[in-house]
Each structure stands twice: as structure tokens, then as C-alpha cells.
């Protein structure tokens, strides 16, 4: 092998390094994204456990399907909607703030707000009585 060929091979090897690094990063990103999406999808055979954390066989297959959909280039919204179309809204651990789901968002505000108003009202009433 000539010096020129050897140099060529070394340069080719150096060029391959970033490409391989990019390949590794891509697969890591896929797992991280699948984990993020899977942590927002409810395991159908568990109670309130996301598919990303469930030990059930169904949840594991759902995770594999999420990865497949990511590889197909689907957006987060498209993946969530594909699950909602098959399982219904309950498959989302963080349901959309619409319809009766609004209760989940409004109720804590109502409880805290109502409680605060009640406390302020009581304090003022007592102050008036003591004055």
C-alpha cells in the first residue's frame, strides 16, 4: 500500500467519526423522545401508570409502536392523536383542556380561589367585630 493510499484511508476514517457519532446521537434522541411521549400515555392495563414506566407486555408493545411512529416521521401530536383515536381521551395522562376535561384544570383553581376568598372574608369579619 502506497503512502498516498494510506493517507486516503486515514482521512476516510477521520471523516467517518462524526458520521458515526451522529448515528449514535440519532438513536439516543429516538429513545429519549419515545420515553417523553410514553410518559404521557396511560397504560391501558394499569391504574394511572404511563406506558414508559409500566412492566406490562401491552405497554412495552405500545412503546415499540411509539418508536415506530417516530421513525416514520410523525409529530408528537400525530402520535397522541393516533392513540386517542383507538383508546379514547383517557389514554392521555394530561388530557386536553376542553369539554368535561376542563374540570381537572378549573377545579383546583376554584378550590384554592374559593378558599382564599373565604379566609379573607372571615378575617375581615372578625376584624370588624373586634374593632
Amino acid at each position, binding site marked *: 500500500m502506497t503512502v498516498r493510499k494510506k493517507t486516503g484511508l486515514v482521512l476516510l476514517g477521520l471523516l467517518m467519526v462524526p458520521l458515526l457519532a451522529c448515528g449514535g446521537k440519532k438513536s439516543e434522541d429516538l429513545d429519549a423522545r419515545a420515553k417523553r411521549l410514553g410518559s404521557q400515555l*396511560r397504560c*391501558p*392495563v394499569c391504574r394511572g401508570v404511563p406506558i414508559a414506566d409500566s412492566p406490562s*407486555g*401491552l405497554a412495552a*408493545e*405500545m412503546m*415499540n*409502536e411509539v418508536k415506530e411512529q417516530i421513525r416514520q416521521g410523525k409529530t408528537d401530536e400525530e402520535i397522541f392523536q393516533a392513540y*386517542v*383515536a*383507538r*383508546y*379514547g381521551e*383517557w389514554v392521555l395522562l394530561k388530557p386536553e383542556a376542553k369539554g*368535561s376535561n376542563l*374540570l*381537572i384544570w378549573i*377545579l383546583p383553581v*376554584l*378550590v384554592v380561589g*374559593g378558599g382564599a376568598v*373565604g379566609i379573607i*372574608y372571615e378575617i375581615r369579619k372578625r376584624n370588624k367585630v373586634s374593632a
Partner: protein
Amino acid sequence: MKKWGLFLLILLPMVGLLYFSLTRNPRDLPSALIGKPAPHFELTTLDGEKVSLAGLQGHPVVVNFWATWCGPCLQEHRFIKQALQVYQPQGVSFYSILYEDTPENARSFMSKYGTGAPVLIDPGLRTAIDYGVAGVPETFFIDPNGVVVFKVAGVLTPGVIREQLHRLTQGGVP
């Protein structure tokens, strides 16, 4: 005091409704697929024969998800065998899709309890996921146009089979 009473009067039903919604079994909810085209599948029977849902169009189809380790599935197996005798001659197709189980277990089950509907193998549970299955047994009734018209989560009873298949084969309730 009256204001607190009013506040509680508004709040308590809301908390009750929220509690009811959050503690309900998702399997009791109506399927998101009702009124929609049944998800397509092309699966293989225990004998290696390919079955495609598209190939069954024009006839009512009953798709049952089951497993040999599921007690209620054994209970409904008897009803499915009876229904096969009555409704298969009327053009109804029955398929039992295996859920988290092995073909070997399914073969042993069928030889022990008698052959029922053709068993389909579902690699990676893809068909179960497409049908929104959240446990077994679950059964879907598909009309001749390929639309899901009814879902049963739990044991399929002879009454439900009769009612649904009468509606699909003759139109109307028996």
C-alpha cells in the same frame, strides 16, 4: 355561613363528578372505534392460513381478543362455539385473536375445550393496540360495511351475541 354552604353546594358535586370520572375503569367506557371503520388486519391462523379483514367485507364479523390464561375467556369460549353453529351458516365470520399468549397454548386449549373460532396470531399485539384493547376478553362486532358497531369488554353472553348478530344479519332487535 350561608355563603360557605353555597360554595360547598357548588364544589361537592364537582369533586364527586371528578372522583367518579377518575376512578372509572377505562374498559367500561364506550370504545372510541364505535361508528368508525374497523382497523384493518392481516393475520395468520394457527394453521398458517392468512386472514384479511378486507377479504371479509360484505359480511358481519365478530372479532374476539382472548388468551388461554384468562378465566372469563374459557367461560365465553362455550358461548362462541354455540354462536358459530347458529350464525356461521348465516354468513357471520368469527375470529379469536390471541392476546399475550403463545400458539402452542392456544392449540392445547382448543384440543382440551373444543375448537371454536379460528385463532389468529397477533405479532407485537399490533392489532390489539389498533382496536384499543385494554385487557381480555374484549369483542368487537363489525357490520358488513366494515364499521365497528358494538364492543363488549368482559364475558360475551349468549344474549348479547343474539342481540347484536340479529341486528347485523336481519336488522333490528330479536
